[in-house]
Each structure stands twice: as C-alpha cells, then as structure tokens.
C-alpha cells in the first residue's frame, strides 16, 4: 500500500471530491495561487480553476459567511482556515449561522459545508497560535466535529465530511501534516461518528483523538516494552461521539486515561469521564485520569512549552497511576 503524508492524503481527498461533484469548491486564504499555507490545496487551482479554488482577502468572518450562503443555496463549500486560531474571527458563522440554520428554519435549509484547518499547538508559536478548540466546537449542536489523527483517517474522514449534508468541522494538526502512513489508492470513506480501536491490549484504555492519537500510540509502544498492554481508542469524531467504543474498551480493561490536547476545564476529557462514570461505574478498578495541556496560555520558551503540553511521558505516568503501578 502506498505510504503518503497526512497533507497528501487531505489533498487527494479534496481532488477526488472536487472531481466527483462540481458543486464542491474550496475557499480560504492562500489556497489557490500560493498552493495553500500548508500546501494542502497544492495543484488544485491548476486543475479546477479560480471559480472553484478561491483565494480570499484576510477576512475569516466574511469568507466563512460566504461559504454558509453558498451552501444554503446548493453549493458544497470547503472553507479553509489558515489555523483555527484565526477562525475565532469567524466563529459567529460557524455557531450562529451554520449550526443553527436547519433548526431555526424548521428543517428547510441544511448547510452542507466543511470548515477545516490546523488546530492545536505546533512548535513555539506562542499563545495566540497554539490553541486546541475541540471542546469549544463540540459543545455546539448542529455541527459535526472531526479530528483525524492519521493520513488514512484524514482522507477517509474528509471525503465523508464533504459528502455529509451537515456542517462539518475538521480539526487537523499542523504537526501531523508531514506524518506518513498507509493510504490505499482505491477510494474509501470512513463514516463520521465511528471511533477506531487503534491498538488492542487488555491492561488499560487510552481514549483520545486527533494529534494525541499519535502520542497515545507512542506511549503504548513504550509501555508494551514493559509488558503493559494498552487499548487505544481513537474517537476520530468528537461530535457525535462514539461512546459505545469507549464502553467496550473500558468494560474490558477496567482502567482508563483520557488524553486530549486542550485545557482541562470543560474539556473533552470531562465529557468522556462523565460517560465512563455513568456507564462503566461497576467496571472501574481505578479513578479515570486525565492528561491535557497545563491551564495556561501557551508560552513561547521551548522548555516551558514542552512543560505545558500533554506528551508521552505524562501519558505513561497517567497509565501507571490507573494501574497503581510503582515506578522509580
């Protein structure tokens, strides 16, 4: 099977969906002439022309709203945000327009739109460019929130998102764009709202998604060397959340760690823990432990940034805690 990058997988998904359906277009800052700030849209302008690959001014609120309007009357926009940090300027269109239109019109206007772009911290980008918005967005009924962690998932989930008749938010990872993985040449789709058991082991469960799935797999590798076998449940979609997949794993392992990139308070982990304590109360052999970013704006200094981020070491420490495992 061919091995390609996460960026190439997204690019392939865009190309395939734009070829399949001429209502699909991509719009955003630097998506056309520049080939994409992160080159996700590379080559698309040449292939599909300027009506379908549209460079915008730096005006997130404006072009997000243009996407909503175009979707309202039958087009299928893919709106690229250079980062989700900038999408805060457009959040009104995501939350008040896209997510509400179907409901407040009594079912008359669905909004088939994809809002996508990198989310979360990269390396030393400082406080304003390093935020993970999963919990903000997942809070809102009326949208789906997708967090692909691998090239295979990125392609299959993006293709499903484009075909979905609802607004879909895709949170990509800046640090994931260069990661590689197996992606078949033949077409495939990954259904939204279905988690994947990325690794199977009976001792404890890590529930995670997106970029943190990679961290979870690395932690599981290290633990395996010590004879500890981990279930890694990659949610892949945060809303709707595949809670059955969480239950299946926790009822087997009886111990769980929830690993997320964002902050603790009202984070995704809080929701997952709430589910586990309600549905798996009698199965638990230890309190669920959460791993997340430190409750501070992201610092610039390399050592402080590393200290703030969830990582492999913190994840292993959490696993040891739920296993009541003494370590030196």
């Amino acid at each position, binding site marked *: 099977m061919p091995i390609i990058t996460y960026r190439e997988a997204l690019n392939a998904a865009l190309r395939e969906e734009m070829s399949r*359906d001429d209502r699909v*277009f991509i719009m955003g800052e630097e998506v056309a002439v520049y080939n994409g700030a992160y080159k996700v849209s590379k080559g698309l302008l040449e292939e599909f022309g300027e*009506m379908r690959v549209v460079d*915008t*001014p730096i*005006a997130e*609120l*404006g*072009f*997000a*709203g*243009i*996407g*909503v*309007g*175009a*979707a*309202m*009357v*039958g*087009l*299928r*926009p893919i709106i690229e945000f250079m980062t989700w940090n900038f999408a805060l300027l457009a959040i*009104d*269109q995501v939350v*008040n*327009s896209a997510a509400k*239109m*179907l*409901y*407040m*019109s*009594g*079912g*008359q*206007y*669905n909004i*088939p739109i994809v809002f996508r772009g990198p989310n979360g911290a990269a390396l030393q980008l400082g406080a304003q460019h390093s935020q993970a918005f999963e919990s903000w967005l997942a809070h809102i*009924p*009326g949208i*789906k929130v997708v967090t692909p962690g691998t090239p295979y998932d990125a392609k299959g989930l993006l293709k*499903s998102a484009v*075909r*979905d*008749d*609802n607004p879909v938010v895709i949170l990509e990872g800046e640090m994931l764009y260069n990661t590689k993985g197996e992606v078949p040449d033949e077409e495939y789709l990954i259904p939204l709202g279905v988690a994947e058991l990325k690794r199977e082991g009976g001792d404890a469960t890590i529930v995670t998604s997106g970029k943190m799935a990679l961290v979870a797999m690395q932690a599981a590798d290290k633990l395996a060397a010590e004879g500890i076998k981990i279930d890694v449940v990659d949610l892949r979609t945060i809303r709707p959340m595949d809670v059955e997949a969480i239950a299946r794993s926790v009822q087997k392992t009886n111990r769980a760690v929830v690993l997320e990139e964002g902050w603790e308070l009202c984070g995704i982990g809080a929701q997952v823990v709430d589910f586990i304590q309600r549905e798996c109360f009698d199965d638990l052999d230890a309190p669920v432990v959460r791993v997340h970013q430190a409750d501070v704006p992201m610092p610039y200094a390399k050592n402080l940034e590393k200290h703030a981020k969830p990582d492999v070491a913190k994840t292993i420490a959490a696993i040891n805690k739920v296993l009541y495992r003494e370590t030196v």
Partner: protein
Amino acid sequence: MATKKKSDARPGDAALHRELLRSMLLQRRFEEKTAEAYALGKIGGFCHLYIGQEAVSTGTLSMLRPDDYVITTYRDHGQALARGMSPRALMAELFGRIDGCSRGKGGSMHLFDRNLNFLGGHGIVGSHVPVAAGVGFAIKYRGGDQVIICYMGDSVVNIGAFHEALNMAALWKLPCLFVVENNGYGMGTSVERAAAISDLSRRGAAYEGMDAVTVDGMDVFEVREATRAAVERARKHSTPTLMEIRTYRFMGHSMSDAVHSTYRTKAELDEYIKRDPIEQLKHRMLEAGELDAAAWDALDTTIRAEVQDAWDFADNSPEPPLEALYEDVLVDTVS
C-alpha cells in the same frame, strides 16, 4: 437621491398601484394585530415591528423575480409578507405553532420560506451580510442571472462583517443588493452617534465597482426606481449595489421599547408620521382617481379580515409535538 416624482405613476398603472397599496397595508394591519397578540401573551420573545418602513419592503421586492433570493434581519415580518409569505404561516410562527413558516422553531426573528427563496430573518447584527454575499457567489458560480437582496439596519454599516462582505462582493462582482434601511436608530442609538459618516451610502465609495445610492424610503415609487436600476446592473453586469433607503420606524425598537422613548421625541415621530408611506400612496391614488373612499374601505376591510383569519388559524394550529425538539438538528443524508 433620485429626483423623479411619481416616476412610474402612469395611466394604466392603477392595478400595480393597488397591488403596492395592498402589500403595504397588509404589513401594517398584520403588525398592528401582532402588537395586540404580543400584549395578550400569544407571542413571546423578541418582536420587532416594521410599521413605517413598508415602502422599503414593497418597493424593493415588487421589482424582484420569484427565483431571486431574499435575506434579512430580525425585523423581518414586512419583507416576508411583501415577498408573498402567507399571513397564516407567519402568524402561526409568531404564535410558536407547528403550521408556522419555520414550524414554530424560529419565531419572529427567524422567518424562513424555501418556496419563496426567503433565506431567513437573522438575529445577529451584520452576520447575514456575508451569507448574502455567499448566495451571490453561488449565483455567479452557476452562471445564473438571479440577484440576492439583503436587508439590514443602519447600525450594520459599523460592524466588520459589513465591510468584509461588501469588499468581496465588489472584488468578485457578485449580484447583490445591499439595502441599508436607515430608520435613524440602531435600537436607541442614533446614526449620528454611531457612524463616523452621515450619508451611509458613501460607504460604498470604499469599493470600486459597487454602485451606491440614497433613496427616499417613504416613497414606494422612489424605492422601486432605485431597485429597478440596481437589479438591472446585477443581472446584466453582476455588480453589487449599496442602497441606503431612508425610512423611519413608527414603533419602538422592539415590543419592550416605548414608541417614543429617551432617544427620540414625539415631535420627531409626528413629523415622520406625516410622511407615512401608505398615506402618501393612498393620497396619490385618490388624486389620480385610481382609488375612492369606498375602494379604500373595501381594501382595508378585506385585509383586516385576512389578518383576523391568520390570527384564528394560528390560534388553532397545534403546538409542535415534543418529539420535534430533537428534529432538524442534523439531516441524515449525504450527497
């Protein structure tokens, strides 16, 4: 400002004039009844009346085609009726009933009608202006010759979404009519206290390729003529127009705001009431012999009956079933 008077008051237009009068009077009588229903607690939430501004909705929408698109703000009853929404569906929506145009889920601020290409009343000031530009983008994308008309209050010209949308509409030549209904006040803040410009249409000068006009919004014919020109430009050349239509609301900002409050005087209100757009058209038609007292009475009686029928219909329409709570959050389909 356009200068022609009675610009399309030609002989033989009596039927058109009667239709314009009917459209405006329907809005007026409907909203008088709306205020009554609100006082009785049959309508809840925020409710913003359009009384005084009817020449804007009727004047503009009488120049559009059925396949054109309409989008507006939370002050949306007038445009919905002028676009042809059934008074029954509208009143049922205000009453929060299942037969409402948005199945009781939208309310006064969120009127939608897909059959009329009526893309909603929107509740966040400025938010729908980029959405309108997006509809214009879709029209151009498909190579159609429709237009989108986007209504907004005068306060919208001060919010960022307005600039972002108008910039891209001009840059990309989108067939949009941006209609600023300048009724003098954004809630209780006068235009003079909110905008660092007195002629709001001059904002259009910031966008090359965008026409900008100022129109007397108390004269339905002036509104029609300005709209005719803007629609023609949009259809033929796919260019946007910024229309500042000067009007006045005779009621408070919303039902919780007194008719004349701390921010405006009764004397000012009375001056505008003298220019009531419905009275102006009525008198013009009386003078032209297109209308007599008996015909006026008959029209008024018919419309009052139609509005009463809408009330009765809304009153008898069931509340949405509780299972509707969880419907219309997402659709189950893919394409």
